[in-house]
C-alpha cells in the first residue's frame, strides 16, 4: 500500500504506474472470473430482463391457468415439502448423533442418494410407479388382487411423489449439516441436564434447539432458494403432466422456452423475483459477514 502512495506523488501518472505490481497481478488474476461473470451472468440476465419488459407478457401470464397452477405448486413444494424435509432432517440428525458402530455404517449408506446422480434414480422411481409394469402396482396386485392406482396420473399424487423424490435426494445433505451443528454442542450441557433429571423433550427444548435454531432457519431458507430451481424432480418424474398440472416455476420457464415463448419464460421468472431476492439478500448478509 505504501508503494502505491509514494508512486502517486508524481503528477498525473498513467494507471499502471499508480498500482503496485501485486495489484496489477490482482486485477489480472481476477479478470478470468470477471469475464465469465460478464459474459454468462450479466449479459444473459440483462438480455432476459429486456425480453421481459413488455407488460403484455405479464397480462398473458396472468391469463394462463398453467402459470397460476405452477405458482401454487411451487408454493406447496416450498412451504410443505421443504418444512417436512427439514423437520425429518432435524429428527434424523439426532438419530445419527448416537454413537453406535451400526449407526456409523448406516450413515455411510444414508448418504448414497446425495452421492449418486439424480437422473437414474428419478427414472427408477418413475418406473416403480408405472401403473401396469411398475413394481409398486405389481405388489399391490399380488397381495390384494386389485389394480393399484395410476400414481402419476393424479396431479395431487404426482406432485406429492415429486416432493418425495426431492426429499429422498436432498435429505442426507441437510441431515449431515444439522448433524455437524448438533455435534458442536458441548456434551457437558447434556450431562448436567441428566443430573437435573431432564427428559428428552426438555433437553431438546432447552439445550439442542436454542443452539441450533439459527442454523436450522438458515438451512431452511437456503433449501427453499435452491428448491425453486429443482427442475429434475418434477420434469423427469411427471414431465409437468398430467395436463400440465404439476409444473413448478422452474419447469414452466423451460416449457415456455421450448414453445418458443421466450418473453413469457422470462416474465414467469421475473414474477418469482419478489420472493427470491429478499431470501437471497438475507443469505448474502449472513454469509459475507
Amino acid at each position, binding site marked *: 500500500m505504501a508503494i502505491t502512495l509514494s508512486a502517486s506523488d508524481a503528477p498525473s501518472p498513467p494507471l499502471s504506474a499508480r498500482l503496485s505490481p501485486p495489484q496489477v497481478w490482482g486485477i489480472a488474476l481476477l479478470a478470468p472470473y470477471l469475464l465469465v*461473470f460478464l459474459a454468462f451472468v450479466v449479459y444473459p440476465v440483462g438480455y432476459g430482463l429486456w425480453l421481459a419488459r413488455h407488460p403484455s407478457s405479464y397480462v398473458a401470464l396472468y391469463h394462463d391457468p398453467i402459470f397460476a397452477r405452477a405458482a401454487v405448486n411451487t408454493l406447496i413444494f416450498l412451504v410443505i415439502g421443504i418444512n417436512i424435509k427439514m423437520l425429518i432432517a432435524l429428527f434424523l440428525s439426532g438419530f445419527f448423533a448416537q454413537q453406535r458402530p451400526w449407526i456409523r455404517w448406516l450413515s455411510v449408506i*444414508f448418504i448414497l442418494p446425495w452421492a449418486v*446422480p439424480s437422473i437414474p434414480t428419478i427414472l427408477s422411481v418413475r418406473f416403480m410407479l408405472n401403473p401396469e409394469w411398475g413394481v409398486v402396482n405389481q405388489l399391490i396386485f399380488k397381495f390384494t388382487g386389485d389394480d393399484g392406482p395410476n400414481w402419476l396420473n393424479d396431479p395431487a399424487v404426482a406432485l406429492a411423489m415429486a416432493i418425495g423424490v426431492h426429499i429422498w435426494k436432498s435429505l442426507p445433505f441437510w441431515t449431515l449439516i444439522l448433524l455437524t451443528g448438533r455435534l458442536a454442542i458441548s456434551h457437558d450441557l447434556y450431562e448436567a441436564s441428566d443430573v437435573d433429571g431432564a427428559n428428552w423433550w426438555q433437553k431438546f427444548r432447552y439445550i439442542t434447539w436454542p443452539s441450533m435454531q439459527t442454523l436450522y432457519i438458515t438451512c431452511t431458507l437456503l433449501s427453499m432458494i435452491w428448491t425453486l430451481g429443482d427442475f429434475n424432480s418434477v420434469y423427469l418424474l411427471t414431465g409437468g403432466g398430467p395436463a400440465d398440472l404439476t409444473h413448478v416455476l422452474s*419447469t414452466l420457464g423451460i416449457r415456455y422456452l421450448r414453445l418458443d415463448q421466450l418473453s413469457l419464460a422470462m416474465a414467469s421468472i421475473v414474477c418469482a423475483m419478489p420472493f427470491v431476492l429478499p431470501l437471497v439478500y438475507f443469505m*448474502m448478509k449472513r454469509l459475507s459477514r
Partner: protein
Amino acid sequence: MKLPTLREVGTEAKLLLIGIPVFIWTMIPIYHMFVFAISPKEDAFTGKLWPTHPTLHNFSIVFHQQHYFLRDFWIQFWNSTVIALAVGALTLFVATAAAFSISRLRVPGGRAVMNMALFTYFIPAAFLAVPMYRTMGTYGLLNNHWSLILAMVTIAAPYAIWVLKQASDKLPVELDEAATMDGATTLQLFRLVYVPLMMPSLVAVGTYAILLAWNEYLYAFLLLSKDTDITLPVALGNFLAADDSPWELLMTTGFIYALPPAAVYYAFKRYMVGGLTAGAVKS
C-alpha cells in the same frame, strides 16, 4: 461381558425402529435400479425382489452398444468425462486466481466481486438456464461442448471462489510478507506458497466442480442436441421418448453412469465433508 439391562435393550430397539425404515427408504430406488440391471428382459417386469436368473448380459449389451438407444454409448460417456474434467480444470483455474486476488492481494473491488459471485450462487440455476440458452445462441455456441463447459463453470465458480476465499483468509499474512521479503514475485508467491498450502481445498473444489458437471441434466439437455454431442444423463432422458423403451437397459446404463460419481464422492468424502458441507452453511 455383562448382560445389557432392559433399559439398554429398549433404547437399542427404538433406534432400530428408526434405523430400519431409514435404510429401506434410502435403498429402494437404488436397489430397484440394480435389480433391473441384473435381470434378463423377460424377468424384469415380474416384480420379484431378486431375479430368478441374475445375469450381466445387460451390461454386455450396453458396453457393445447393441441397441438402438445405446448406439452412441461410448461417445456419450466420453463427452461426459471430457466435459466434467474440463469444467473441473477451468473452475479451479478461475476460482483459485480470483480467491488469491481477493483474499491475498486484496485487490480493490475484490469484496464487490465476491458479493456478485455469491449472488449468482443463490440464484437458482434453472432460472438462469432460460437466458443462458438464448445467450449461447447469440454467441454461436449452441450444440458445441464449450457452451456446456462455460455454463457449468459459471455455475460452479461462485461457490468455489467462496470456499477458497474462506480457506485462504485463514492462512497467516506473515507467510506472504516473509516470502515477499525474500524477494518472491507475486507469481512465485502464488505458485510456490499459496497453491501448495491450499491443496486440500483445491481438491475439494475440483471434485465439487467435476461432480456438478457430470451430474448436470438441465443445461446439457438445453445446450446440446446431436446424439453424438450429448452427455450420458441426456441420453438417459431420451430413453423416455419411446413408449416401449427397454427399461432394463436404461437402468443398466443409469447404474454405470452413477458409479463413477459415487466412487469419487466416497473416495473424497473426507475433503467433501470437511471442506464443503461445513462451509455451505455458517451458523
